């Protein structure tokens, strides 16, 4: 014969709120763990360059083109089309793209500071504008 477990009245009242709190805490913990796990600053080798970009952003195009033209090796994650990129962008704390990770240091907030930081890190980056961007934006 089954014996019914009876909880004290106070416990019975707190059971559902406690469960809800536990579920939220679990979700939050999972999110934090995921951000920690996917944060490329954790695993990026010293001085290695990683760009967080999108395909359509013009500053991303100029940054990518400049590094390619200067023969500077880099890795790139698309923050829209890859989970890794999306979580890396969240982990960076940046509010806009592109974001450059140099070793373990994120640099964001505009193209110029990122190019300067890359240069200061010892990479001789030559700022270069792709022809299609130049033709579109040239005033003459």
């Amino acid at each position, binding site marked *: 014969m089954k014996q019914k477990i009876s909880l004290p009245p106070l416990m019975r009242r707190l059971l559902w709120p406690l469960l809800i709190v536990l579920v939220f805490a679990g979700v939050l913990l999972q999110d934090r763990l995921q951000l920690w796990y996917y944060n490329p600053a954790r695993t990026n080798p010293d001085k290695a360059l990683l760009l967080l970009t999108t395909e359509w952003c013009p500053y991303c195009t100029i940054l990518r083109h400049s590094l390619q033209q200067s023969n500077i090796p880099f890795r790139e994650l698309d923050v829209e089309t890859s989970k890794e990129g999306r979580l890396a962008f969240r982990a960076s704390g940046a509010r806009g793209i592109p974001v450059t990770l140099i070793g373990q240091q994120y640099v964001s907030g505009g*193209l110029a500071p990122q190019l300067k930081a890359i240069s200061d890190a010892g990479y001789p980056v030559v700022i270069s*504008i792709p022809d299609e961007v130049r033709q579109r934006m040239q005033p003459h």
Partner: protein
Amino acid sequence: MSQFQAVIFDMDGLMLDTERIALACWDQAARIHGYQLDPAIGLGMVGLNTRDCVRWVKSVLGEDFPMEEINVTSRELYHAELDRDTPLKPGLLPLLQWLEQQQIPRVVATSTRHEWAQKKLRKANILDCFQGMVCGDQVSQGKPHPEIFLTAASRIHVEPAACVVLEDSDPGVRGAHAAGMRVIQVPDVKAPSAEVLAFGHPVYPSLQQAHAQLQAWQGLPR
């Protein structure tokens, strides 16, 4: 082709061999501020006034690109360089002498600021060769807008259609064309674009050939 009554001269890159110096100084200034730039970016600024250069570079590289600081450094380097020497383009002096003999008025239309344009022309000993000067800071819209050329023509009371403009850059050629003036292009550091060449104006590698073209338009033997 009918005869012309006045000639409007661009200054940097057309009369003075200074575009090369300006580009080298801009490149050096950018390096001083921690940036290395593709020469194409400097070439993209040829023929534009300072305001339009700043606007263009910031539109491409972002508002936080320290264009103003680089410009200040570049200007210091440039003026130090020009204090040493202000080189003239080959063929300029014979052309100015011929126009003087023909009593054809000459005006300068340059994107450079008035104070500096005057200094440069004085340093090059050709300031007195001109009856007027319209500078980048004296017009509300720079080249390729026609305002600077129309203002230059009105200073000497000559109809735009009776003026010939000598220019090295595409924005200048576009402006002269928009002003309804005849134009001869003598490219300097940057070759004309296909769109500009489509205007069908004469393009010559030196002022000597431009001089011969002007003589031909006046009905004189080349």
